């Protein structure tokens, strides 16, 4: 009896692993491609066993613009999300504690920014950027990405600040603490998980963002997702070794972040509206 149960459990776990691997298979195929030669990628029948080579990565980092694009991606995502988190945390505190008139309307408008198709948002912004000559500048790109990250950050952080009892604020006030002290010394440490979650998931969104970068960016501010659509052709065909190795490098940060911050995945993928652990 017990043994049969053990078998069933093993079979069940194997089944779950197989499902997970099926979903991962297309990505695994690309990662394998990154370690093949061009002939190896194009071989018919496909090679499942092969001698791995690191040539593609050497070639990748020797290309003239790749490091700059990668730097752009890193700079734009971290700077914009950094700004967004600071700004959003202050607002989240105000929304949670003072509930000024129009709070729910503002929260609603913020959420709806994220629900609108990105093209519809980018049309007017692109007109404005043309007029102000902010296109293809780091300032312009970082600011639009910060705007893009703020709604989600406010939502997620308001949820976390709501979770901290008002008693803490009152105790600190009675003991003569300034609001500044309350916000940064009393509340901030308690919502640290929220800050981490907001940071990680906004970073992933900006990291993967394509359309804003395609339309508002240019030569100076090209990010990797855009370079996927423009730089990958060579000799009339798609340069598959470049694509595979670039994609492999570019996927590492998001995959590591969901590996290490898995418990924030739910709150992160639902814009902070559904909380809980999976």
């Amino acid at each position: 009896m017990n043994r049969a149960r053990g078998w069933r459990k093993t079979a069940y776990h194997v089944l779950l692993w197989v499902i997970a691997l099926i979903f991962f298979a297309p990505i695994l195929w690309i990662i394998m491609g990154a370690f093949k030669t061009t002939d190896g990628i194009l071989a018919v029948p496909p090679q499942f066993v092969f001698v791995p080579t690191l040539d593609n990565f050497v070639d990748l980092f020797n290309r003239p613009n790749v490091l700059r694009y990668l730097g752009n991606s890193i700079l734009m995502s971290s700077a914009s999300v950094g700004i967004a988190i600071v700004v959003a945390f202050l607002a989240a505190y105000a929304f949670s504690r003072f509930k000024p008139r129009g709070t729910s309307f503002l929260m609603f408008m913020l959420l709806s920014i994220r629900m609108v198709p990105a093209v519809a948002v980018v049309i007017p912004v692109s007109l404005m950027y043309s007029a102000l000559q902010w296109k293809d500048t780091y300032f312009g790109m970082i600011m639009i990405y910060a705007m893009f990250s703020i709604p989600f950050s406010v939502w997620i952080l308001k949820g976390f600040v709501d979770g901290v009892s008002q008693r803490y604020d009152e105790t600190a006030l009675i003991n003569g603490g300034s609001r500044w002290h309350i916000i940064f010394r009393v509340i901030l440490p308690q919502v640290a998980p929220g800050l981490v979650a907001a940071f990680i998931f906004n970073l992933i969104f900006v990291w993967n963002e394509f359309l804003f970068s395609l339309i508002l960016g240019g030569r100076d501010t090209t990010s990797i997702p855009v370079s996927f659509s423009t730089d990958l052709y060579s000799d009339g065909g798609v340069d598959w070794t470049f694509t595979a190795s670039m994609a492999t490098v570019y996927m590492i940060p998001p995959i590591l972040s969901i590996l290490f911050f898995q418990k924030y995945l739910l709150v992160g993928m639902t814009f902070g509206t559904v909380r809980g652990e999976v």
Partner: protein
Amino acid sequence: MAQADLSSPARLQQAAVPAMTPLRRFLMRFNRLFDDARLLPVLLIAPVLIFFIVWNVIPTLWMIGLSFYRYQISIPDSLAFLGIDNYTDIIRDRAMWQGLSRTFIWVFFGVGIQTLLGMVLGFLFWGSKSMPGRRLALTLLFTPMIVTPVAAGLFFRLIYEPTFGILNWFTQSFFGQEVLLLQNPEVAFWAVLFVDIWMWTPFMILITLAALASVPKAEMEAAEIDRLSWFDRIRYIILPHGKYILMLGILLRTIDSFKTLDLVYLMAVPGSTTKLIAILLRESAFEALNVGWSSALAIILLLTAIAFTSIYLYILNLNSKAKAKEVAT
């Protein structure tokens, strides 16, 4: 906690001792500025408001204005007031209606299949708490949804490739048949939709797991003791607890699926069977440079999104009310 006993006499004396340099005085005043109960909320919200106004409200108002004009960047002096002609044009435009109906099919089948598959797999993963390597397995499972959509489009272009793609090799060696997916306009739509389903089924698995996690253990145990059938367990216990989270997930997916652009753009198919509404809008705005018309279409999509958002928030409210009731009883 350095200022905890500020009001005690000892502390007052101490406060007078450090020299009141101008900088220190300024910092203290600055700190106290935040204590004004009327000023503080305004100060805290101001940065978000500035962002919101400069990068959203002003451009949107501008766009609303332009939607009443003929404005084509490529043609000089094309600016002319049209009234609501752009809107009536859109309503009469056949390509737009085709794009819209295509988008509905995309959303309906995409979200539908993701939801069904996600719920089934979510159920399967429910009892996986003791699984060896669970964290790694879940990371692999959830990776598709955090991969750059443009890159995902490229992966599948390699897989679907007719001469050396792995899919074609597979069908040829097992069924002796060559498949043209992206090159054939009739199936290209479904081939791209398949990628979308692959990317977002994990999201519905995540949502299902969240919904299941919100079911109280005691009720499930009671159901087991009462030997309730699985059908009844789902109907009387799981759905009442998890339905709102499921609805939120489906709605979020619907909204997101409605906006799909990157993936389809990168899988770039000849013909027009994959021209979803977002793709059409991008083309009219940034290739045909027909700004007036595009603005009008963007406004329509904006209003749709706002409507979706209100439904979303309505369900979110129901969810928190249901939770509050649960705690109260």
